[in-house]
């Protein structure tokens, strides 16, 4: 489109990629994790739950700093990065994904876990006496019944990943096309008082997210789902 600078387009694509990949992975991780946390209740599972929520209490830039240490050559991330010849997990798309995952995990786990709880044990017991393995019960019964919770998880983590910024800024290195997402670009514009551009980007982000979230929430209100 005319008038939209290419770096904004690049950042938009990257942002969407990050949000989609992160949200997808979050849900993939959160579903079994929430299931495991929901039943049966053990006291130490409350602790796992609390630990998951901890990244939230640190300012993103501070959490970003600790992540930098962890991702760097002397941390576990550097050790992993060496597997493919890199020095660090920072400054890469992978690094952004890991950081965003960590930060948004509670938004994904908590609603799904609540949904599993609300379902109660009846459907699980019914499935068991119909010969469904725990795995089949999980994906044929638990996940569809926890649908509302899953949608909430998606909405919150999607929105938050789009808007997340402190961590991304810190571990991303703002490399155009690789780690420069829209929120960082927007911040630049605001800082350098380019108000017109900033308002346009902010407006675009809000509009797009509004439509996406609206679409997602309308899924939430489908009364029933006919899985074939």
């Amino acid at each position: 489109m005319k008038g939209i600078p290419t770096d904004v387009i690049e950042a938009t694509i990257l942002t969407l990629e990050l949000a989609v990949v992160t949200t997808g992975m979050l849900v993939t991780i959160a579903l079994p994790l929430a299931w495991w946390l929901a039943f049966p209740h053990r006291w130490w599972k409350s602790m796992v739950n609390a630990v998951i929520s901890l990244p939230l209490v640190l300012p993103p830039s501070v959490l970003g700093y600790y992540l930098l240490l962890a991702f760097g050559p002397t941390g576990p991330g550097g050790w992993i990065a060496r597997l493919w010849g890199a020095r660090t997990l920072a400054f890469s798309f992978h690094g952004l994904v890991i950081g965003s995952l960590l930060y948004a995990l509670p938004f994904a786990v908590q609603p799904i876990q609540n949904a599993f709880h609300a379902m109660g044990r009846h459907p699980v017991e019914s499935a068991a006496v119909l010969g469904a393995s725990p795995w089949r019960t999980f994906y044929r019964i638990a996940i569809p019944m926890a649908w509302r919770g899953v949608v909430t998880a998606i909405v919150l983590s999607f929105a938050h990943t789009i808007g997340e910024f402190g961590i991304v800024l810190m571990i991303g290195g703002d490399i155009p096309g690789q780690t420069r997402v829209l929120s960082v670009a927007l911040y630049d514009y605001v800082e350098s008082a380019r108000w017109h551009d900033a308002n346009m980007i902010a407006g675009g982000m809000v509009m797009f997210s509004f439509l996406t979230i609206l679409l997602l929430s309308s899924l939430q209100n489908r009364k029933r789902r006919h899985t074939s």
Partner: protein
Amino acid sequence: DPLRLAVAANFIQTAQQLADEFMQRTDLSVTISSGSSGQLATQVREGAPFDIFLSADTQRPEELVSSGLAIASSRFTYAIGQLVLWRPTTGIPPDEQMLRNGQFAHLALCNPATAPYGAAAIETLKAWNLYDQLRPRLVVAQSVSQALELIQSGNAELGFVALAQVSRLKEGKYTVIPESLYSPLRQDAVLLSRAGENIDARQFMTFLHGPQARDMIRRAGYLTPNGEQEAAR
């Protein structure tokens, strides 16, 4: 009411020392609020209760003056930043030649759009004719302190930071970049209009002009403008 200073993030440590000294001398109380220069200027515009603004550039105080939010006569350059190229390891200090050899994956600097030191770093790279070559390896932080963190944590091997940040660090080696390679990093202070009648605030401005403050600022790793004509500019 205490005297409220709004201080650009890169100067906050030094500002704290200055404030401590001032408080000891005068028995007045001073509080420091920090943020990026752009953020602080916006806050002043929106009615933040600051008395004095120590910016990291000259442009923002000027803008505040022209929109009547700051007192023109009070504006002066309290410090001139010095750009250094720093790396955390021992051995020879990093220099132009090291950049040219390119034995590194990431070179850290800060965002030219938001931090003057970033703009200076890029001017330097351009002056060395290295900018286009190194561009893919540049990692950009949002402030000089974040740039330092990128390097200190080992994620970037070296980078451009402020002398004030690294002059007292025990680890690492640095080279001061010649001032001729980039436009000077003048940091201006200005008395804000709401404190126009505030005697304490004027007293602090006077203190900031004084030899003792200038000495402290220089020891922290900044230059100070020579001569009275600078201060009166």
